[in-house]
């Protein structure tokens, strides 16, 4: 009985969370301009997505490309910077460690608007013309703390002597790094990368303030501009449904693989 109520509660919440997504998916199969009015079944929106008219610059697919490019570059830099920083922070002591940890927390606690406005003022101050570079720098800023926080627990689990041993046995620091340190930290680095990547994909406010006036659009700023003009590009519904399906399939694959691995390990 208790289990029934618990499950019912969970699924009710999930139904609420997914209602808008289901709505988008349903109305991706009709051509009407507004979400919510059904004008007959059609797959035109999907066809349009890949037909070329959506692929010019300043278009929806260009925005998707920008979003992915920015997320990939910033998450990669964040992963490297954050992992090196985590090793450093792990080996710091006392006050210094506290200070750097505190510094690492600021971007995580700061709301997007503050991060966006403060970086906007910085780029104005530095006379840096705003565009891809400034957006990527901004995304590295809020992504790296997540990498640091994901890698530090792995460092704590690691035997500190292994790296030393590799050096004593004649490995160069670069070899010891590649063959000893990185393999042990890899799970933390990957989850840090995924977090930074996700934060970048979903970001709107920081991009909005740091993209300048060169017409750089990511998915978020594209949707914002679109909605302000009064009415979303219908093709967005098809795009969102596709993105949702891709994520769903990826997560299911990861999940199945993990369960399999757990079984093998047991």
């Amino acid at each position: 009985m208790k289990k029934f109520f618990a499950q019912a509660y969970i699924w009710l919440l999930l139904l609420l969370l997914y209602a808008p997504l289901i709505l988008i998916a349903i109305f991706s199969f009709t051509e009407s301009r507004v979400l919510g009015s059904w004008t007959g079944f059609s797959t035109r929106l999907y066809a349009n997505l890949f037909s070329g008219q959506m692929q010019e610059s300043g278009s929806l697919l260009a925005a998707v490309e920008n979003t992915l490019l920015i997320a990939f570059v910033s998450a990669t830099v964040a992963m490297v910077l954050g992992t090196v920083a985590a090793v450093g922070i792990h080996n710091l002591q006392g006050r210094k460690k506290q200070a750097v940890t505190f510094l690492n927390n600021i971007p995580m606690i700061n709301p997007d608007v503050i991060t966006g406005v403060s970086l906007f003022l910085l780029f104005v101050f530095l006379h840096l013309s705003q565009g891809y570079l400034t957006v990527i720098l901004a995304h590295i800023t809020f992504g790296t703390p997540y990498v640091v926080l994901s890698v530090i627990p792995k460092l704590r689990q690691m035997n500190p002597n292994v790296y030393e041993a590799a050096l004593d046995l004649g490995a160069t620091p670069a070899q010891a790094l590649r063959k000893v340190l990185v393999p042990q930290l890899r799970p933390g680095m990957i989850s840090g990368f995924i977090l930074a990547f996700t934060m970048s994909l979903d970001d709107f406010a920081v991009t909005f303030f740091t993209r300048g006036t060169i017409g750089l659009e990511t998915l978020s700023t594209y949707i914002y501009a679109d909605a302000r003009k009064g009415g979303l590009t219908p093709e967005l519904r098809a795009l969102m449904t596709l993105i949702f399906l891709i994520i769903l399939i990826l997560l299911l694959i990861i999940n199945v693989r993990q369960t399999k691995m757990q079984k093998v390990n047991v």
Partner: protein
Amino acid sequence: MKRSHWSIPYVVFMAIFVVLPLLLVMLYAFQDESGRFTLANITRFFSDSDALGTFAVSLEVAIENTLICILLGYPAAWILANKELNRSAVTIILFIMPMWINALMRTLATAEIFNMIGIPLGKGTLLFGMVYDYLPFMIYPIYNVLAKMDRSYLEAAQDLGATPWKVFWKITVPLSMPGVTSGILMVFMPTVSTFAISEFLTNNKIKLFGTIIQENINSSMWNYGAALAFIMLIIIGITTMFSGERKEAEEALI
């Protein structure tokens, strides 16, 4: 080279991209347009009834949103972390997955649902949309803490004669507080500072504090915009100090 030196590049990076920008916010907040020191931007806020009103509404919405997220999210996190009630890892993934779909898009779809069933956009729909957007950020840290909790404390309390209700309030709740704190940090401040989402969900009827900051910056009123951002920074400082146990709260996130 000592390995503690590996933190130097990051410290330099953070000094430029985190500390310096925040100092610039303060600098601009206390300057007039020709760069002279002034308190006018700050005092202007306290006589600007529009901004004050927005500020009050933002705090109210943020408090309500945070409370609803705790009330709805805590039981969910508790059920998800309880192996007797929930055996599959898929459900927790399902709670996190909507976060991968663009938040603006989800918000617009939510607003559309209200339009379809004929509920006028306003305070109620704003609150619903906020809960909808931020609930996963409350569930996830609480779930993380509860899932890592040492179950033997619960068994010990039971063996010593505590009722299930007592076990929950005296053991589970206190041990899960870092997760709740982390959830509050993830929900409260972002709600106050939201922009765009509040406009979409209320058809521009209700503005939140973030919108006012954005409007000022976008119309080149940098000094007043910075002053508003500075006021928000102070509130962030206060909330973080009150939430205590910060370290554990952040660890609950990963």
